[in-house]
């Protein structure tokens, strides 16, 4: 087999990897179910869609963000039984919000390497346990000498980044707010959604100020939830379905954690992660070759920021795509057709349900009311996290 080497990386796989099932719970501010129970709901749905039982699962990947949300130290142990981790190789992967796509990337390794033929990927978050507010947990990601004495709120980072993006590219808040309007409206068609609503740009601009330019409706709400994916080897996929969705490329990249030393207007980490995935998936012109995108949208400006980083628009030009309706569900490049984090909710790692799961459903034409108008063959999902410097990307295709 010919081995492709890119920046020292060898993209050699033993077998092709297909996704054959996905599931997710409702995303809500607070759910009564325990994390284990949420995992069970998501896994059961994914297995049902795949036509498999838990006995068919050979290996399990768990994705979950900081323990400080659930308030369970080493929560992968606690969560294992609802995730099907019982009696089989099981491991947690964690890169903050980036986990939403990194967990499926880890699942991909397990199958592509030939280690397993059936891998279950499960992501869970129960942010509501954390008090006085889920945002309080973020106090402990700040540098304790340089930042914490100033009593920062996590939103500050994003407000500073959003301002820089607006300033350098001369983008107006009303152009950014269109993203929130679009995603919250898309989420009306998502049965699991938390904050789907019909809103206007004025609603966003007049919503409660948090850390300007960021206002309440620019932000996705913290949520509880879980999601699951079933990833299998090609020879298994053949028996399970006529319409598997193939993973054709993965990539991830980390920028420096000296975040005050980066120019925040452009997400270099997103560009680097995309470069890796595009090489692997043989994509040279993402705007032409990719039909549907689920970039990470915890804030409205992040969708635009990420679209630029991922190469779907030139620097500063993603707002034009949004304004012209290109990123609507019936547009030429549907973006966040699920409703994204802004509309469905933001349970950090479990955002996999509206990122990787949604792209899978779109490419298998199972997204129901959310199905994009155009014919689709290739899609991209992306997540972002840690101290806002990691990006994780997965490209899928319904053609092998």
């Amino acid at each position: 087999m010919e081995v492709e080497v890119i920046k020292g990386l060898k993209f050699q796989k033993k077998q092709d990897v297909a996704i054959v099932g996905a599931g997710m719970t409702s995303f809500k501010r607070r759910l009564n179910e325990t994390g284990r129970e949420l995992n069970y709901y998501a896994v059961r749905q994914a297995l049902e869609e795949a036509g498999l039982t838990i006995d068919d699962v050979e290996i399990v990947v768990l994705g979950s963000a900081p323990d400080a949300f659930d308030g369970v130290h080493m929560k992968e142990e606690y969560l294992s039984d609802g995730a099907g981790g019982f009696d089989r190789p099981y491991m947690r992967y964690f890169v903050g919000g980036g986990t939403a796509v990194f967990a499926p990337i880890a699942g991909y390794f397990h199958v592509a390497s030939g280690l397993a033929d059936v891998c279950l990927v499960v992501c869970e978050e129960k942010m509501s346990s954390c008090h006085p507010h889920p945002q309080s947990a973020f106090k402990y990601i700040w540098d304790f000498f340089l930042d914490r004495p100033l009593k920062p709120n996590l939103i500050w980072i994003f407000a500073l980044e959003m301002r820089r993006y607006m300033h350098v590219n001369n983008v107006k808040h009303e152009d950014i707010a269109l993203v929130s309007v679009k995603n919250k409206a898309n989420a009306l068609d998502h049965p699991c959604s938390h904050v789907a609503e019909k809103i206007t740009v004025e609603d966003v601009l007049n919503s409660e100020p948090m850390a300007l330019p960021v206002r309440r409706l620019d932000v996705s709400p913290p949520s509880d939830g879980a999601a699951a994916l079933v990833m299998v080897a090609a020879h298994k996929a053949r028996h399970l379905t006529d319409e598997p969705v193939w993973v054709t490329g993965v990539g991830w990249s980390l920028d420096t954690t000296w975040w005050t030393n980066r120019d925040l207007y452009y997400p270099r980490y997103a560009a680097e992660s995309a470069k890796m995935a595009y090489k692997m998936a043989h994509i040279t012109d993402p705007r032409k070759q990719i039909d549907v995108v689920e970039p990470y949208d915890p804030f409205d400006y992040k969708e635009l920021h990420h679209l630029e980083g991922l190469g779907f628009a030139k620097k500063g030009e993603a707002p034009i795509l949004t304004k012209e309706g290109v990123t609507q569900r019936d547009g030429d490049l549907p973006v966040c057709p699920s409703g994204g984090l802004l509309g469905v909710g933001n349970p950090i790692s479990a955002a996999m349900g509206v990122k990787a799961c949604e792209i899978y459903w779109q490419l298998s034409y199972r997204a129901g009311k959310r199905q994009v108008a155009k014919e689709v063959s290739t899609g991209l999902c992306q997540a972002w996290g840690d101290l806002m410097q990691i990006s994780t990307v997965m490209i899928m295709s319904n053609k092998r």
Partner: protein
Amino acid sequence: MIEKITDPEKLRHWGGKIELYWVYTSGKAGDLFFKKLKADGKFLAAKCKKCCWIYFPPRIYCPKDFSETEYLEVSGEGRVRAFTVARLDPYEKELKKPEIYALIDIDGTNGSIIHLLGEVNAEEVSIGMRVKPVLKPKEQMLGDLTDILYFKPI
């Protein structure tokens, strides 16, 4: 070579506390369990519809085969499988009186629970000893594990 600070007084540190607290919901099965305990002083277990394993405390699913479960009532009595005598609290402070913690296999189930033993001296506890739960007065119950004060020998 960069000169380093060698005077430990000049090396800085910052003491702080994690100022978070957590509110854990009992979950779907847990909520039923604690509500039943609070309302009727009764204990719920859950039986797997497929492999018939009986979970205590109850769960909505069987982690082995992912089948659903059905609830059933059990007495809450059981046998001591293992026990330990604690002399320090979670912050390693001496307890006024040593506490006996036991792992108790609950009758009629495949499950067990960790709880305090009471009305008994450590020297008198033995593996296999039969015990039963002692509950708080109903009006003081909160719907959590402290509604069981301790288990005592039968």
